[in-house]
């Protein structure tokens, strides 16, 4: 599903964010991308949705070389993804339901159908009762769930989440990660960038560790840090 071959990303000719990264993620896989701040996790995710382009190497999504992608096809690529941003990026002036339905409106689904699907996605994350609240009126954990509902409402092929449990209490972080596992069970390829040790250690999934832009470890069932 996702293939990176000898990918490097250098900013301003001097700052190396990714250095000769090679990675393959099969369809339906669940991967924790771990590493400290600045390790290159967010850069890697941004290359996948063509928010950025690799300085060298090849990035393939579903067999498609992103370097060859026309500008006009970038929105189509991005619609294959469901994204939970690190800072969530919910629209403060829109209700929870409107925020979720927006992902469908972008795909051309409008009217009642979009809101029905939004309601189903909110039900999946347990927030149907908050449909008409504004993001500012709900808790941080609930906001994460809204962002997750928005990312999955259009049934994406690939789900990526950047630090989805950051600054959350352990029980909420656990709840959110369980939700991500459920999403993955639907057959959606899932990449989660995190530096939450408890979450990674508790779920025993594939772990890809980045350090200074390089992959330093890739194990099928791993821990945050090898002893």
């Amino acid at each position, binding site marked *: 599903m996702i293939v990176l071959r000898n990918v490097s990303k250098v900013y301003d000719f001097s700052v190396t964010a990714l250095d000769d990264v090679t990675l393959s993620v099969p369809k339906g896989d669940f991967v924790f991308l771990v590493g400290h701040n600045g390790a290159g996790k967010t850069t890697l995710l941004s290359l996948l949705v063509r928010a950025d382009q690799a300085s060298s190497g090849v990035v393939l999504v579903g067999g498609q070389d992103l370097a060859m992608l026309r500008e006009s096809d970038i*929105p*189509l690529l*991005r619609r294959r993804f469901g994204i939970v*941003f690190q800072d969530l990026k919910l*629209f403060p*002036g*829109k209700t929870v339901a409107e925020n979720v339905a927006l992902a469908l409106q*972008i795909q051309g689904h*409008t009217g009642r159908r979009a809101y029905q699907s939004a309601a189903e996605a909110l039900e999946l994350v347990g927030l149907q009762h908050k449909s008409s609240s504004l993001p500012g009126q709900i808790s941080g954990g609930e906001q994460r769930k809204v962002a997750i509902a928005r990312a999955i409402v259009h049934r994406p092929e690939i789900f990526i989440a950047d630090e989805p449990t950051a600054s959350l209490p352990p029980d909420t972080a656990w709840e959110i990660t369980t939700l991500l596992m459920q999403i993955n069970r639907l057959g959606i390829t899932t990449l989660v960038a995190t530096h939450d040790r408890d979450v990674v250690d508790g779920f025993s999934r594939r772990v890809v560790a980045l350090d200074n832009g390089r992959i330093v470890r890739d194990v099928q069932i791993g821990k945050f840090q090898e002893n």
Partner: protein
Amino acid sequence: MAGFSYLATMSANAIVNAWRHRTMTLITVVIVSLMMTTLGMFLMVENALSVLIVSMEERVNLIIDLADDAPPADVLALRQQLLEDSRIISVAYITPEEALARLREYFADEPELMQPLLGNRNPLPASLELRSDDPDYLLALARQLAVSPLVKEVIIPRDVVRNLSRAIQVVRFFGYTLGAGLALVTLFVIGSTIRLTVYARRSEIEVLRLMGASDHFIRWPFLLEGVFFGLVGAFVASLVVGIAYLWVNELLQQLINFLPVSVDSTYLLRLVLTLTVFGIVIGGLGSYLSVRRFLTI
């Protein structure tokens, strides 16, 4: 149906955007309304002058007072000759009695003015009244007829018409210049507002892009917002100009009742349509130019 639903969603987004930046929206709507009201007022004045000049042109172009001793057969022959002239629209024969009746009607409110003027006899001659589209030809014809033994006097009331024509040309020139200027200012105002809105929403636009929104999805609400400004401006202008039109009509009817002043509802409708189309075009164009320049997707 899907297209309508899409447009409805885009329109809803546009209205939400306008509401979210309501101070800016209010300022824009007030300025656009003022511009369009000024334009509407100009159109109204231009129309009033046009109606007036057409009416004066329609009344008569040339009056030929016939000599008292002109043989009726010769007068009839002259009339026939003029009727056969393709450049003459109409020829009316006015008897002295008809001319007197007209005069009496004109001074109906002040009959005492007529008495010393007329005495017990009718001093008015018979006449021919001619209408033509070609003022130069009429002038030549007037010179030619003035020397005819059948003619007592040729009267050309065209000077008034000519002066009015000149006035309307001046009004039109300034009006079109003003209209073009106002259109540019309105374009600039709407464009600036949209630019500020684009700037205020740049982070949201970035999120939409990352979620896979197409150029259309991002641009349409801004374009519709511009159209919305134009429409509100047109609505306010139509209301103000419409009320002013009715009020001025009523006033003129009271003050100068000999002028052909009457409420023309089809003109009012055309004026509202003109302002609405102008609003949509200027609003859409203003935001389109701004979005094209400042919203790089």
